[in-house]
């Protein structure tokens, strides 16, 4: 069982990101779960979204988890939210930031000692460049594909095209570019 926790703000697309990831994972024959925990869903309010991925049907419906991956798609939440909550010795962090990894970890004491498990990528800038607005969910998926090694990039892109098929071609292309850039830039 692989468990993923997203830290996001309402409107940044973590719920869509979690569902999109679930959609693609399901095509590989695995079982998935994607859900979110938000208060009164106001744009900008902090929220968490979750994925579970397993070979067998998933029966656990609890929100509680010890995440294998923590995906932070809002730069400020890395500082203000409890992103290391219930983490494990092996939990990997992918964090949206314009800072370097060293600069970021210096700001967040909870990440110190976990340097080899922290990855950074500027999903906000990538989405501004490609999608032309702040929509950091798609780039985060690209970074996740790279860090997790769960899929080949091409396989993931092909399937994301299907997930996004209701959108105009221009938007699909921009998302593909965003995913690809984050895949290449995450470090």
């Amino acid at each position, binding site marked *: 069982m692989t468990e993923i926790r997203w830290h996001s703000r309402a409107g940044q697309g973590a719920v869509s990101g979690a569902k999109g990831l679930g959609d693609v994972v399901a095509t590989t024959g695995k079982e998935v779960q994607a859900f979110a925990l938000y208060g009164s869903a106001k744009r900008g309010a902090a929220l968490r979204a979750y994925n579970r991925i397993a070979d067998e049907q998933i029966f656990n*419906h*609890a929100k509680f988890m010890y995440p294998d991956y923590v995906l932070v798609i809002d730069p400020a939440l890395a500082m203000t939210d409890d992103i290391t909550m219930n983490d494990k010795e092996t939990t990997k962090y992918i964090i949206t930031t314009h800072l370097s990894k060293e600069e970021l970890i210096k700001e967040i004491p909870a990440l110190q000692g976990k340097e080899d498990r922290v990855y950074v990528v500027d999903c906000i800038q990538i989405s501004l460049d490609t999608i032309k607005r702040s929509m950091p969910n798609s780039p985060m998926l690209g970074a996740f594909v790279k860090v997790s090694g769960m899929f080949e990039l091409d396989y993931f892109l092909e399937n994301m095209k299907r997930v996004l098929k209701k959108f105009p071609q221009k938007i699909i292309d921009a998302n593909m570019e965003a995913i690809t850039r984050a895949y290449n830039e995450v470090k």
Partner: protein
Amino acid sequence: MPKEIFELQDREVWDGNYAASQAMRQAQVDVMAAYPITPSTPIVENYGNYVANGYIDGEFVMVESEHAAMSACVGASASGGRVATATSSQGFALMAEVLYQASGMRLPIVLNVVNRALASPLNVRGDHADMYLGRDSGWIQLGAFNAQEAYDLALCAFKIGEDHSVRLPVMVHQDGFITSHTAQNVYPLSDEEAYKFVGDFKPVDDMLDFSRPVTYGAQTEEDWHFEHKAKQHKALMDSRPVIDKVFEEFEKISGRKYNRVESYMMEDAEVALVGLGTTVETARVAAKQLRDEEGIKAGVVAIRNFRPFPFDLVRDALENVKSVGVTDRSSPGGAMGFFFNEVSAALYTTPKRPLVTNYIYGLGGRDFSIEDAKNIFREQKANADAGYITTDIQQFSGLRGPKLGFFQTKRS
């Protein structure tokens, strides 16, 4: 027939709301009258979308409240159409009056209930307060534990309620957010298979048959009211074999078998948890782990068919265990949990009379974790070993602050 064909994959990733709305589409519901409320809104919203885009040959009726929604459903159903809607919580409460009208008139309406807490305090999340509110309304009540089941049971609901030997309205329950907003793998039937299973709607005494005028909702006083209600209760009780038959037929086309009472690892179980909704599946994970890790012979009994209450099947499932924890996800309002009372009544008529305790949990969407379920099993194990109830008979599980519980066993 619908103008447009909806493209479906063999394997979809759907949340419970989307799954339920796809079942509404495949059953080609003629009329849906609805007033939206979180968390069930997407079910009726999607139906409206399917009608507008030609995927359903049906009619969406906009109304000013849930009371009006169910009233319009009553009218449409009595007129001779296949009718369904969806609601939650406060909307369900506002519908309550008309729920009794629908069942008393024997109208096979399908109501998707996405379970949510009742205010106050205002809360949009899942607990079973609304489901419990419907328990005496004369409807058949089916419970889904995940999105797949919300889809499957919605299809079964039409076939059960519309059976001419049943002719009763059916609720299909799913947990708000935990099922309704959680996307999981769902394996849908093709449109042809699904519609063939549900079948054409065959009206009985429809009001639009002008050659044979009928009256719905006539007044009866002490001369006939009692006989009508007795007949209605008997119809509910007699729906049990029809439900079994529909579940068998559904297994033939889907490979998925449903039972009015679902037992998990109960063959040799010493202790059991009894539950409803998504809790059941989380508890199954806990039972399996406890067997592997702590040697506790734990099992889970789930009520799939809440009404008519499977008194005999509950008894069969639990009579050989030593201690049972019954979970209620609804504020008990000054009594033992209602589900505890029903299970206890069934077990009181068994020779061995297992110990039974009551856990109130998960109100307003409070998380229910694997560890919470394990604690319930461990307490049952302690009861089983001691031979008496070692805790308060009613306890609150997952509550912050001081432990809250009531009543202890009387021991001589």
